[in-house]
C-alpha cells in the first residue's frame, strides 16, 4: 500500500473540514477502501478517520420512522431490535452480505458507497476501465461479463452495484442524509446512485467533501410480508448474481401496495414503479407476479456471459414475492 497521511476527526464538522485537503478520503470501516488501496485502485494521499465522530446511533424519528447513523456497523444495524422487528427486509439483506468479521467493521454510510466488484475495475493489470481510468474503455463489454449489468448499462460501463443493503434500502424508500461545506441535504435512495452513462467514474450524486450522516427509513409499512432473496455462486460470503427485495403490504389475500427492488443487475438498485402498481389491489397470484417481474426486466440487455441473468432475475422476483406473501 502507498504511504498515506492520517487525521482523526472528532466531530462531523471537523471531518468535513479535514477532508477538503488534497486527495483526501474519509475512512469508516475501511473494508472496501483499504482493499482497493492495496490493489492501487484507490490512491488517496490522506485518510480522515471518522470512527470517533459519533453518528453511530439508531433512533426512532418523530414520524415513526427510524434514523440509522452513518457510522452504525452493518452487524449492529442488522441486529438492532427495532430493525429486526420493523424492517426485517433490511436485516435479511445486511446479513446476506460479506462475512461476520466484515459486517462488524463495515458501516451503513460506507456500504452506500461500496464500489463495484467488476474485475476490470478491481485489477489494475487491466488497462481498460472507464470507472477507474476515465476514457480508457470498458474491458468488461467484450470481456468476461458473467457478473455484469443487464439493465441501465452504457457503452462506457456495464458494472453493477455490489451492495445487498442498497437493494433493501431502495425497496424501503430510504432517504440519505448528508452534510457538507454548503450545508445539509436529504437525498432519496432512488436518486443517490447514478447510472453509468458517460461518467461511470461517478457512482453517486454526493458532492466533494459531503459526509453521509444518516439513513432515514420511513414508518414501517412492510413488517410482516418481506423477503430478500440472494442468488449467488456459493451459499454464503459471495456477491449476488441477482438479488430481489420484495415488500408487501397485505389486506387479507390482496396486496395493498408492493415494493420490488433488484440487485446485481444494474449500476444501482433497480425499481420500476409500474411493475409494483400492477400488484396493488390484486391477489398475489403467480401469473401476476411473473407479469410484474417481466415489467421489471423490460429492456434488459445481456452480454456474452450473462444472458442467464434475465431469466434468473425474473424467477428471483417471482419467488421473493411468493416468499414475502407466505410470511406469517
Amino acid at each position, binding site marked *: 500500500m502507498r504511504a498515506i497521511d492520517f487525521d482523526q476527526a472528532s466531530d462531523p464538522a471537523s471531518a468535513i473540514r479535514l477532508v477538503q485537503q488534497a486527495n483526501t478520503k474519509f475512512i469508516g470501516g*475501511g473494508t472496501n477502501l483499504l482493499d482497493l488501496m492495496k490493489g492501487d485502485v484507490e490512491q488517496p*494521499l490522506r485518510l480522515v478517520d471518522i470512527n470517533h465522530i459519533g453518528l453511530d446511533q439508531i433512533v426512532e424519528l418523530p414520524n415513526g420512522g427510524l434514523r440509522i447513523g452513518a457510522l452504525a456497523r452493518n452487524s449492529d444495524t442488522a441486529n438492532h431490535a427495532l430493525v429486526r422487528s420493523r424492517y426485517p427486509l433490511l436485516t435479511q439483506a445486511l*446479513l446476506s452480505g460479506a462475512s461476520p468479521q466484515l459486517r462488524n467493521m463495515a458501516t451503513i454510510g460506507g456500504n452506500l458507497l461500496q464500489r463495484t466488484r467488476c474485475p476490470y475495475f478491481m485489477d489494475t493489470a487491466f488497462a481498460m476501465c472507464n470507472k477507474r481510468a476515465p476514457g480508457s474503455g470498458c474491458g468488461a463489454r467484450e470481456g468476461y461479463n458473467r457478473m455484469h449489468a443487464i439493465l441501465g448499462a452504457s457503452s462506457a460501463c456495464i458494472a453493477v452495484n455490489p451492495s445487498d443493503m442498497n437493494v433493501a434500502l431502495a425497496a424501503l424508500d430510504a432517504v440519505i442524509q448528508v452534510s457538507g461545506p454548503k450545508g445539509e441535504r436529504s437525498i432519496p435512495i432512488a436518486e443517490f446512485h447514478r447510472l453509468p452513462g458517460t461518467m461511470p467514474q461517478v457512482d453517486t450524486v454526493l458532492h466533494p467533501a459531503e459526509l453521509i450522516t444518516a439513513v432515514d427509513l420511513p414508518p414501517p409499512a412492510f413488517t410482516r410480508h418481506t423477503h430478500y432473496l440472494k442468488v449467488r455462486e456459493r451459499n454464503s460470503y459471495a456477491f449476488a448474481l441477482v438479488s430481489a427485495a420484495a415488500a408487501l403490504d397485505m389486506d387479507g389475500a390482496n396486496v395493498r401496495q408492493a415494493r420490488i427492488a433488484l440487485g446485481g443487475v444494474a449500476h444501482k438498485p433497480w425499481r420500476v414503479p409500474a411493475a409494483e402498481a400492477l400488484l396493488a389491489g390484486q391477489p398475489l397470484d403467480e401469473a401476476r407476479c411473473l407479469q410484474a417481474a417481466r415489467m421489471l426486466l423490460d429492456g434488459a440487455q445481456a452480454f456474452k456471459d450473462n444472458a442467464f441473468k434475465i431469466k434468473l432475475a425474473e424467477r428471483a422476483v417471482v419467488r421473493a414475492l411468493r416468499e414475502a406473501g407466505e410470511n406469517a
Partner: protein
Amino acid sequence: MQSALLVAGATQLPLAPANAAPAPGASTTAPFVPPRPLTLNVNGAEHQLSLEPRVTLLDALREVLQLTGTKKGCDRGQCGACTVLVDGRRVNSCLTLAIMHQGAKITTIEGIARGQDLAPIQAAFIEHDAFQCGYCTPGQICSAVACIAEMKAGTASAVTPDVRQQTFAFTDPEIRERMSGNLCRCGAYNNIVIAIQAASAQTRA
C-alpha cells in the same frame, strides 16, 4: 526497537523515497509519511509502537509485535485467516489500520487460552480434529469464540428463518453460515462445526 520497526514496515510495504519530489500534476505520488507513536492494547498488555499510518493491524501484530499466531492469508478480507477480536468483536485485521485501534482491547490467538489452560474451543478443536495443516486455525478459533458469543446473545444470521424472532438455535446450518468468513483449504469444515457445537454446549452448560 525503532530500527526494527522501520525494517518491519519496509519488508511489507513499498516506501516512497523521502526525497521524491512530486511531479507537477502527479497527484498520486505519495509523500514520505513518517512513523508516529501509538499505543495498542493486545492480550491485556499495552505496547508503545511507532508506525506509519498505512500499517494494517495485521502487520503491526505480526511484524512489529511478533505475534505471528495471527495469519496472513489473502490480505484482502476474503479468507478470515487474520481474524482477531477487537473489544470482543471479530474483525479481519488485514482490512483495518493499526492506528485506528488505539484505546481498543485487541485479542489474538495468543490471548485466547487462560494461562496454561486451553480455552474450551481450543480443546474442542484438538478433541474433534478440526484442522489439518493448521494455517487457518488461529482465525477459525478467534472467529469461533465470537461466533459462540453472538449465538448466545441471540443475534440473527442469513439462515435464521424469521429474523423478527429472537433465536438461540445452535444448528449446524447456523454455525456454517456464521463461520463462512473463515475459509479452510484443507476442508476441515465438518469437524470445525462439530468442535464449535461441542464448545458451545460446554459454555452454555
